[in-house]
């Protein structure tokens, strides 16, 4: 039986290493985890310890990746929505504050998870039993909401009705096109067997880097913003109500996404944010931090629930290959590890945010974006080969559409939603026939 103290130590080690890796823009811990899994037997680390180490990685990533998003504009599918307000704060010299607001949301969720862990043991198994038979229409419900709920940005100026219609529908049409193209790409990647078997589990990684990270880097490369001196704040510009409302919304949205398959943190955040009428900037940033922590850590935490096998998210899929939950002790150690690891990751976040924040005005964003881009290309090539690189390039083209036409980047998530909906409703074969691919 694994020693709880050693398990906790592995979580904390995972937090430190995960935090360090997460500062590197666009590097996702999901992409590094396979390396750890391969190395573990050589280092004599047992599967159980390895899984707790990976939990630490996810905690560190969920907290520290905010640096990459807020300072270097390299978001993933859970943080792209926060780009606009965070960039405004960065240009106002409030970048450190923005990072810490997001971190605060994440920290609160870490503590909530530990507090409600006994309730999760009761709630999760029946909830999963309810969701599974209803999953196909639940996913379609979310997918169509994402598609239909975007509003036109402008009515345009001009007397002609068609002129106004065209101006208003520019972003909507771009959004629908993004949805269709991303869905087709996702379908081909998931069912088209285009990646070699040994890297097939990484299939959507190059697509997601192309959808979210590369377009932001391209924009940064050309815009090359001058970042002013970042102020070190002694207090955060948020009222207790902002903190409560932001954390609550983020926790609900992230937990919903963590529990429901195929729903990512970004979608959960939009639905819950709209349902509770979230508008204020600080509240929004807090909720984004809370949301991504609840989504990433929550989905992995579900793997530890004894008696049921809940595999949600990329890291849980990897860990499920070597770990079967069964012990209540391990579940509670994971809960304690999330709280303690969350606190440690928050401290690391404060130090890193201030350290890198001071250095930001000296950064040439065009050069930095170029360097990150070269790194990403190398990473995608190393992990998925030339075909993965091709997927990333196509995804970048699709991901640039919403950026250029000011529509929702969330439509790119059709890459997951559309193939899964088609598959679950039995329409995948028909769709494959239309595309002319064999599945």
């Amino acid at each position, binding site marked *: 039986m694994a020693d709880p103290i050693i398990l906790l130590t592995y979580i904390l080690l995972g937090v430190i290493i995960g935090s360090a890796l997460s500062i590197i823009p666009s590097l996702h811990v999901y992409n590094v985890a396979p390396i750890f899994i391969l190395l573990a037997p050589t280092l004599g680390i047992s599967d159980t310890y390895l899984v707790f180490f990976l939990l630490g990685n996810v905690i560190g990533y969920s907290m520290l990746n905010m640096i990459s998003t807020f300072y270097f504009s390299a978001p993933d599918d859970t943080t792209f929505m926060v780009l*606009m307000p965070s960039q405004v704060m960065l240009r106002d010299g409030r970048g450190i504050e923005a990072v810490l607001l997001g971190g605060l949301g994440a920290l609160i969720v870490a503590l909530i998870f530990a507090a409600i862990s006994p309730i999760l043991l009761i709630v999760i198994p029946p909830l999963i039993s309810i969701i599974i038979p209803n999953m196909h*229409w639940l996913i379609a419900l979310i997918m169509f909401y994402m598609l239909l*709920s975007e*509003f036109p940005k402008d009515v345009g100026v001009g007397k002609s009705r068609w002129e106004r219609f065209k101006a208003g529908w520019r972003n909507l049409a771009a959004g629908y096109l993004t949805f269709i193209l991303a869905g087709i790409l996702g379908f081909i990647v998931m069912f088209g067997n285009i990646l070699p078997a040994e890297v097939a589990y990484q299939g959507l990684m190059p697509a997601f880097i192309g959808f979210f990270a590369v377009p932001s880097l391209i924009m940064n490369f050309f815009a090359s913003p001058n970042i002013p001196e970042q102020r070190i704040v002694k207090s955060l510009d948020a009222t207790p109500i902002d903190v409560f409302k932001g954390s609550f919304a983020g926790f609900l949205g992230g937990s919903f996404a963590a529990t429901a398959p195929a729903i990512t943190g970004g979608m959960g955040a939009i639905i819950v944010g709209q349902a509770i009428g979230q508008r204020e900037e600080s509240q929004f940033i807090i909720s984004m931090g809370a949301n991504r922590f609840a989504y990433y850590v929550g989905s992995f935490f579900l793997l530890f629930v004894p008696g049921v096998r809940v595999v949600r998210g990329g890291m849980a899929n990897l860990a499920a290959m070597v770990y079967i939950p069964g012990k209540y002790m391990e579940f509670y150690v994971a809960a304690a590890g999330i709280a303690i690891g969350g606190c440690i990751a928050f401290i690391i976040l404060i130090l890193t945010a201030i350290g890198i924040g001071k250095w930001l005005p000296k950064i040439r964003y065009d050069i930095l974006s170029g360097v990150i881009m070269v790194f990403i290309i190398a990473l995608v090539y190393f992990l998925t080969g030339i075909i993965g690189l091709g997927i990333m390039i196509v995804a970048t083209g699709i991901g640039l559409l919403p950026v250029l036409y000011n529509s929702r980047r969330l439509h790119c998530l059709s890459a997951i939603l559309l193939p899964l909906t088609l598959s679950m409703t039995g329409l995948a074969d028909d769709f494959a026939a239309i595309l002319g691919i064999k599945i």
Partner: protein
Amino acid sequence: MKGVVHYFVAAAIVSLLPFVMELSVEQKSLIIVLGAIAGLLPDYIDFKIAKFFERVDEEILPDWPYPDSQKIARKIAMMIDESWNTKKTLNLQLHTIKVGPNLWRKWYVTFDSERKKVKVMVGPITTTGGKDFPETINDIPEELRKGEADFNAPLFYRYKDNVIKMRAFTGPMIAFKPTEDYLEVEFLPWHRRWSHSITIAAVFSMILWVLSYILTLDINITNIITLAFFVGYNTHIITDQPGYMGSNLFWPITKKRIRGFKIAESMDPFMNFFTFYLAIMILLWQMNTAITPHPIDFALKFGSLVIPSIISFIILWVMLPEAVILLLRKRYWKPPKDPFLEELFKDEEEAILT
């Protein structure tokens, strides 16, 4: 109600229809999704189609970088009189002022029907999220900040606080509609008109019935699909009614919007969450009961006393949390107040006092 609330309420209500859950779970049908889409459709039609095709007689695009309030007020006042004198409905599109990627300059228009004045004021810069930067009001030269102009028409305008606010994204349209006795100002004339009517829901449903029958050749499935659509569409119309604006419920039989019950405004976060939570709970109950054996037994047992599932679910999982939301609303929610509007109304208050 917000779009997301309409959508989930429609899904929840449609899930209560006979056979819908059975079809959804056993036949992998997406009928609930169809109902939910129907629940979003009235606003989709208005905000994505109707508003672009509404006639625009005049537009106000404030000057850059300093909007001239006086000029704007004069233009609106002239339009009011023109509409009244010619007895012709005139539509005015007001535009917002974008000053940065996430920043907007607020401005306001209000009508003083008693003194026959239209007032315009330029406000501070605000973020898309609604955070104001009060000091930026000083960027605008004093003489351009406030303006007013007289009109002669007997004007009638009564919607919420009587102030039209131009803030972020797209500005609103207003219509000046002459009647026999007065000139009515209609806010968003293209909204909640024919699209928010029960008659149009019936027409769309009939079209869907024909299409569905041609595609499926199954009268039972066709009837269920049509009913789901009709119910989903109408949940939107009904859940809009507690607000202020109301809807034209029986267009084309009725010509005007029937006023809302003014219980809660559409942006009230607590009422939105109250309704959203109710919808989620209905869906949870329906999903649970559609599976045999039910994964969750909501029944409460105290020795030999058993409280049936439906009662304990309604009390513990619906009424209790909803009561908490309502209590929180009573304690914490205040309709958003714009401090800059006080300046707009200052003269009016002074006039009343003197």
